[in-house]
């Protein structure tokens, strides 16, 4: 018996799930459906352009398609091209692994001013996501609000010299944008004390390699907790580092209360410290990096709220969720691997328990998908991107959806 599984989202959670399912049950028919014409989601558009080692998991995911027989169905949006109900009708199991890509907002006055930007929007533009808005002018004084790894990624990329981006896959336009940025000062502000910051210590330590900056750390607290102590030690190690022109300042324990400026243009950010004092940081750009929520399209809140067993990832009979979509925006790629492996066992056990039910048709129920982008179509994009990489870059991403589709659908053969 060969059950059909549709995984919505081909990022790390979806790929790890397909890997685990097909390892245990090689006969399953597994399709990874993505709204983009290209796979790998966060690994392509969220992992920083200068963290190519982290992107090495793509080699595993390639095998999911090339050796384990999973299908890629790109450029198909659930809720637009196909309804979730239709998908559930056609597949024995549907798994939502769409991640969380919408930026959370602070909910304070002034967030709609010119000069206020959101981390997800900004990184999508930097990493040339086809739906990204153009890169904004940041001006000379940037404040980054947030202390997670995404905030540190943005800090590091804004702080790097052009030479320090060698070997990355940062595109020509974003690279040029960074070179011309004119940033003199970056302040990175955490609402929590330093001991409770969310970044990984290694992300902080990495900053000492940067040559164009000088770093100061203000107001770090103390803690005996071993995990907190590692973070504090990393901050202490970078405090005072460097004599480059760009000043980097870490600040902690500041609650943002208002963004303001004349004529709808940001001029300053106002915070309260732990003692109730107002702290004002003048800035030309304010970037919020405070976590992610669900995109419109899939009714995540409703589905998660009514889940049969949220912890196990069972939303309803035959409908599952994994990764950030299930848990919320916490945890790294390996956490999502573990999550996906647990869910794979659960799904296989459910199949076993329902062995009497007839098989469902899977992708054969969707003849329209002949026009979707398959894995071979993606490989044409991949090959073109790698062969067009300029010197000092490992890839030249194709940024427009039309250009991707033109290449991918050139001679697409429908693979079943």
């Amino acid at each position: 018996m060969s059950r059909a599984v549709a995984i919505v989202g081909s990022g790390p959670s979806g790929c790890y799930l397909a890997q685990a399912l097909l390892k245990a049950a090689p006969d399953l028919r597994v399709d990874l459906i993505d709204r983009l014409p290209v796979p790998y989601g966060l690994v392509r558009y969220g992992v920083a352009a200068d963290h190519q080692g982290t992107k090495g998991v793509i080699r595993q995911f390639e095998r999911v398609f090339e050796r384990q027989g999973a299908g890629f169905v790109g450029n198909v949006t659930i809720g637009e091209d196909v309804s979730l109900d239709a998908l559930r009708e056609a597949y024995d199991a549907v798994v939502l692994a769409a991640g969380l890509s919408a930026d959370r907002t602070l909910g304070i006055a002034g967030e709609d001013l010119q000069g206020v930007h959101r981390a997800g929007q900004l990184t999508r533009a930097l990493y040339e996501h086809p739906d990204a808005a153009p890169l904004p002018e940041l001006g000379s004084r940037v404040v980054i609000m947030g202390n997670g790894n995404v905030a540190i990624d943005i800090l590091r990329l804004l702080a790097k010299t052009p030479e320090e981006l060698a070997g990355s896959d940062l595109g020509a336009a974003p690279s040029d944008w960074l070179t011309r940025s004119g940033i003199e000062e970056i302040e990175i502000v955490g609402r929590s004390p330093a001991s409770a910051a969310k970044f990984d210590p290694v992300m902080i330590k990495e900053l000492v390699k940067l040559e164009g900056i000088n770093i100061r750390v203000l107001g770090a607290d103390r803690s005996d907790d071993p995990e907190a102590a590692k973070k504090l030690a990393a901050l202490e190690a970078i405090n005072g580092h460097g004599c480059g022109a760009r000043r980097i300042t870490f600040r902690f324990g500041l609650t943002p209360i208002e963004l303001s400026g004349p004529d709808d243009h940001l001029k300053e950010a106002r915070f309260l410290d732990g003692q109730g004092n107002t702290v004002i940081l003048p800035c030309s750009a304010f970037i919020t990096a405070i976590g992610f929520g669900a995109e419109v399209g899939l009714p995540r809140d409703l589905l998660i709220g009514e889940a049969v067993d949220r912890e196990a990832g069972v939303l309803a009979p035959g409908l599952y969720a994994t990764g950030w979509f299930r848990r919320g925006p916490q945890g790294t790629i390996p956490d999502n691997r573990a999550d996906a492996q647990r869910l794979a066992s659960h799904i296989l056990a459910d199949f076993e328990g329902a062995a009497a039910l007839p098989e469902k048709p899977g992708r054969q129920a969707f003849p329209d998908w002949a026009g979707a982008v398959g894995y071979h179509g993606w490989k044409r994009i991949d090959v073109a991107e790698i062969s067009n990489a300029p010197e000092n870059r490992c890839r030249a991403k194709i940024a427009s959806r039309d250009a991707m589709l033109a290449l991918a659908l050139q001679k697409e053969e429908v693979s079943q």
Partner: protein
Amino acid sequence: MNIMLLYGTETGNAEMLAEDIMSELEGDHEVECRNLSDFSPDEFDAGRLHMIICSSYGDGELPASAQPFAEALKTAAPDLKGIHFGIFGLGDREYEETFGFGSGTLAELLIAHGAVQVGERITHDASGSDMAEDVAFPWASQIVTLAEEKIGEVA
């Protein structure tokens, strides 16, 4: 030769490499491949070559699947005299300071309990241009040759 191929992994890259090495070796040798999380220190066998693939994670820490094994080794403190192992690391030179620490930690731990390391410990760089298997296959065949002399019996 009888080979126990063990991997310590966090993202699955070391697991994939171990599977590749197994395919490479199993035509000529008897190979069993296992996650370190499913291997107990009392399963070491003096008649076998233990080939270990281990990544580093975070700030040079052991990957998740190697941690219970390392803990068990520290707690049980077995005498590993006569046990032969070779070890290959996966690392990322973006994090130069702790490059290859995971495999290094594991090697030191095994040696401290009396095991003998065969050949050199090499660490593949995920930020480099070489594929892991292109570095690991020649390493593996060299380790096997060295171990055949040392273990002195070809299965």
